[in-house]
């Protein structure tokens, strides 16, 4: 297995983020090709390529575009989801930082294909440097005539607005994102209507992930077959695999879908010296965890699903045997409790409760019944919540109890955590003297 550097091709170039660097490597050929095609043909090419959404759910991108109702003369929008906030997921941000023109070219082609004249890029609020870089890149594209009135003399007009969110995981959920973009509270909307029918400002809207859109220029330039030739039968093309944690060389590995963790670990120089793999997430914290048993599972939608998890965002967080699974799950649960938008009962209250139970377990104050309590709570949240955030919150809990129940029990029986946290640290570890209380930040007692 070899890497397929396409989006990452120019990351090591001098001033890789400049338009000139991008153009020198053949950038914007895709756009020129697209503008010579009928918009419908562009949609068809993306359909034929087999590109599936890279934002987590893996929905076929061309099919999503095809859901837009026929033009009625009113505006329709493309909204790029650049809110990347899932724990472990760290692909869109480096992509936008190193090669923002990939995304912008994709935005123009997609907008042209779906008949959109105003596209939005919704960037996570905390990443100010990426926001700035995108603003500069958009400015460069305007100056070069790729954006604005009469794109490349074709008569096609396109405006692009880069919008910085305020930093909320839920604003990555596409309908919450749209509400936030409209200036409302970022909470998911009731569906139907789906964004394709009534999205931004109640107009037909396509919401796509950064990587999905950035993959479009290559498809148009090199052809759907070129893209479809990569990957597996049902999971085609290339994707960014983000390795983090206890590996020698963490980072972005762009490879065809279907690559295995064993292959990726080889490329990354293996596990931390002298340690071995304990558990890992295939697609971010919302996907059930795997162990070494899945080292050879092809990382494509179907295989990962068949093995009991989800490909998600291909955020591979690698943990070696020094890591306490209870502690890791507890931190993830803190995240979900903190990020729950509060709209629905199961997620709002359930994460608040699970957070306390996990903190209890971690500090040795758990009881024998707590694991079953957690499993039952997860059963009452999964599939009962309003959106997928609540579902995601249950994944680490359920999967870890299934795989490591003994370790949970050991915390109960030993009245404390059997692990040394400093052994797991990759950097100088200074234990916090005062632990943050379990309820910090919850409720009105501040």
């Amino acid at each position, binding site marked *: 297995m070899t890497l397929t550097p396409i989006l990452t091709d120019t990351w090591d170039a001098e001033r890789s983020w400049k338009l000139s660097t991008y153009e020198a490597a053949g950038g914007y050929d895709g756009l020129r090709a697209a503008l010579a095609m009928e918009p419908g043909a562009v949609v068809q090419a993306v359909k034929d390529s087999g590109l599936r959404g890279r934002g987590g759910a893996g929905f076929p991108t061309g099919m999503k575009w095809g859901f837009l109702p026929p033009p009625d003369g009113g505006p329709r929008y493309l909204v790029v989801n650049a809110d990347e906030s899932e724990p472990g997921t760290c692909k869109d941000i480096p992509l936008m930082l190193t090669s923002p023109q990939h995304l912008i070219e994709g935005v123009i082609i997609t907008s042209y294909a779906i008949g959109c004249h105003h596209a939005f890029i919704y960037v996570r609020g905390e990443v100010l440097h990426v926001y700035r870089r995108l603003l500069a890149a958009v400015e460069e594209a305007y100056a070069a005539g790729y954006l604005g009135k009469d794109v490349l003399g074709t008569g096609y007009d396109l405006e692009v607005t880069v919008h910085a969110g305020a930093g*909320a995981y*839920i604003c990555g959920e596409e309908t919450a994102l749209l509400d936030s973009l409209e200036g409302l*509270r970022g*909470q998911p909307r*009731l569906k139907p209507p789906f964004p394709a029918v009534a999205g931004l400002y109640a107009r037909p809207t396509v919401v796509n992930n950064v990587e999905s859109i950035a993959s479009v220029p290559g498809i148009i330039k090199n052809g759907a077959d070129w893209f479809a030739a990569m990957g597996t039968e049902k999971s085609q093309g290339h994707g960014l695999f983000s390795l983090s944690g206890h590996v020698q060389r963490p980072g972005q590995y762009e490879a065809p879908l279907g690559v295995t963790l064993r292959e990726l670990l080889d490329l990354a120089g293996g596990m931390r010296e002298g340690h071995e793999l304990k558990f890992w997430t295939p697609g971010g914290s919302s996907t059930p965890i795997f162990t070494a048993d899945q080292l050879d599972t092809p990382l494509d939608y179907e295989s990962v699903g068949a093995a009991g998890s989800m490909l998600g965002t291909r955020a591979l967080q690698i943990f070696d045997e020094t890591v306490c699974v209870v502690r890791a799950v507890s931190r993830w649960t803190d995240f979900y*409790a*903190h*990020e*729950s*938008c*509060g*709209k*629905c*009962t*199961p997620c*709002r*209250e*359930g*994460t*608040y*409760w699970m957070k*306390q*139970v996990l903190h*209890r377990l971690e500090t040795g104050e758990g009881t024998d019944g707590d694991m079953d*309590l957690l499993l*039952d*709570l997860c*059963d*009452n*949240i*999964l*599939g*009962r*919540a*309003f959106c997928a955030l609540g579902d995601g919150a249950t994944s680490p809990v359920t999967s870890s109890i299934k795989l490591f129940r003994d370790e949970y029990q050991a915390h109960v029986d030993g009245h404390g955590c059997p692990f040394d946290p400093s052994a797991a640290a990759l950097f100088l570890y200074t234990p916090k003297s005062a632990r943050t209380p*379990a*309820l910090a*930040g*919850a*409720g*009105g*007692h501040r």
Partner: protein
Amino acid sequence: MTVTTPKPAAAEPGPVQKPDLVTFSVDGVELAVPKGTLVIRAAEQAGIQIPRFCDHPLLAPAGACRQCLVEVATPDREGNLRPMPKPQASCTLEATPGMVVKTQVTSPVADKAQQGVMELLLMNHPLDCPVCDKGGECPLQNQAMSNGRADSRFQDVKRRFPKPVTISTQILLDRERCVLCQRCTRFTEEIAGDTFIALQLRGAEQQIGRYDVDVLDGDARGGTAVDRPVGEAYPDTSGQPFSSYYSGNTVQICPVGALTSAAYRFRSRPFDLVSTPGIGEHDACGSAIRVDHRRGVVMRRLSGEDPVVNEEWITDKDRFAFTWQSAPDRVTTPLVRDVAEDGTKGELRPASWAEALEVAANGLSAARTAGGVGVLPGGRLTVEDAYAWSRFARTVLGTNDVDQRARVHSAEEAAFLAHSVAGTGVGVTFGDLEKAPAVLLVGLEAEEEAGVTFLRLRKGAERHGVKVFAVAPYASRGLDRMHGTLLPAAPGTEAEWLDGLRTRLTGGLLPPEAGSALLGPEIEALAQPGSVILVGERLAGSPGAYPAALALAEATGARLAWIPRRAGERGGVEAGLLPNLLPGGRPVTDPAARAEIAAAWGLTGTSIPAEPGLDTTGILDALSVGALGGVLVGGVELADLPDPAHARRALAAAGFVVSLEVRASEATRYADVVLPVAPPVERSGSYWNWEGRVRAFPAALDSSALPDHRVLDVLAAQLGTSLGAATPVEAHLAVAAPGPWTGLRATAPGGEAGEPPVVAPGHAVLASWRLMLDDARGQDGEAFLAGTAKRAVARMSAATAASFDVYDGDTVTLATDRGSVTVPVAVADMVDGVVWVPLASAGCRVHDTLGAVPGDLVRVERSEA
């Protein structure tokens, strides 16, 4: 009422279309429901109650609480039943053909899901039911019993909040009881449009909150407050100080005890209360209410449910203003004034009914001989009382000098009411407003003067795109919330606007300076079938306006409805409490009409006078010069009359005054005999709301107080006449006795627009109307409600303010030769040369202090106060 020969398209509702029916099953019960029906609602029809919190039939589905989860399977293309992978929220799911729904009754999955959600809702709940207002009528309590676990597994730390948050002087919020169903915030957004509370923060910290700079980073829109309440008020989400006339509805729809009313908090337990349906007595909408009382004391009022009138909403005034009925100044026994030997009048003293009736009867017959008796019944009577008053005037007193209008009125108005309102039955309805292409408001500020009518108009504007236009001096917040268009008019120029609109909508050419010529094409919606013109009683003060409204209706085919402010006026028009009208729209001048009424009343010897009588002003004038010998007064506040000083002089000069009153008032001060009557809560009766709909209500409290009709009946008996109104049933039957009038209707009013006054420097034209919450006695004794009344301000345009050398927030004095009021300036986008103040708010009684009426010129000066 329809005043024109209706165009067929406008009048005939199309053939009633059978909605497409969808057949599906709930727990094995086959149901056929109209397409679009939500599963939760359909299940109710099968008698299956799915637990719920966020769901409310009048609010858009939210799907937030997840309490209503059910198992669902739907047939695929081949007809094979495919179960949905997860339980579905039945409050957001529309029934589809062949769908199979299993609720908690038949599905263990649904049952567990519901119990799981319930456990999660209760885990952070304080479980303080024993001290909670809602305990005993609480959806959370009840559904925790029916659909929850017996115990909780939650051993951890609960979320807590300092309590309570004061949302207004009237509404309090205990956040720890809140289940975050968002019913309250959805109500403020979807129904009332005054978003005074909103969701804040997220996750477990999410809470309902009022506007808070710490939460919202101080990005209030700022600017001057348009409407600032009297009491403590926090800014709402738009940065304006919270002021809402509908906030009480959130207390009622809150499915837990999180929102409570300051007046009722900790006062009683629901199971100690007796509930009696009632009808709101504070405006002409006839809202269904529920009166909850305990041992003869009203503890609270709630909205009733009436889909065709007020749906499930009422104004805060109808909800909270009820203590007036049991105020300490209630007249509990008849009172008779002592008269000294030399004829000088002494003090009122309690008397027996027998004595009081005798004195009253003797005094009235003497006064009748000495020039006659005028009748001022006031505008708040039930229709039964109104008929008794009308008959008493015509038969016992033999006069047409009767007028219910204790407000600015005109002969033109009496003619308009006789021509287009009386005897027309149910005309334009609330439902019509919701679906009309366009609604034009003239002389009517719906939110202030007919609260739930505003809610219907807003619903129409929000959901059905009804275009609202208002001829008014400035765009109120109410008009803004209906997305309405202002047709800016100085008081007195309404007729000009209406004539301009008529020309425009009938394709005529307008001079370029005419305002209506500047209107966009959207005004043309007013000429579409189904459009409505709503006129308020204030048009009586604008010469030519009623005829112009009629002409516009005639020319466009728009339907016209008259919306008075007081609960009794529509019924009073029907009963003939006007100098030119007999019951049922019969003109007094018509011999056939008089004959019908004489027959209905069984008159033999006496006959009904053939000439129209004096109106309110005429009666007062006649009293003050001794042309009338006496007066019979009902619930009239002298300060409400256009010239209160004149009214006081008139009553002081009157030879004999009989007053029927619930409470001691200015009128009783002048009375020779006071006969106590029952307030609505202590008697049965019915109002006619502005639609013309009969709104009957039973007595809520046992009482020995007598309704007006009974008192008049015994008084008539004392005078040797029968009124046929001794019992409620008799009085009610008397209403129908005359039957419908099939003779000629009164002719349409003529009348020309007056010349607009020339505004001299230092002067402005006075614009004014009453606010819903003001200085009225109907709101007495309710301090929490009073805190939400709007403060008096003088609204004027920036140019007008500049001409008086004042700025926003400065203080001005409005003065006439009679007196002056001093209020803060609020600069608004409005017609120049006009100053608006509330008509009867605390510290700003226009009629009483200034002796002025809208349209008059007043002096305006900067005040250093």
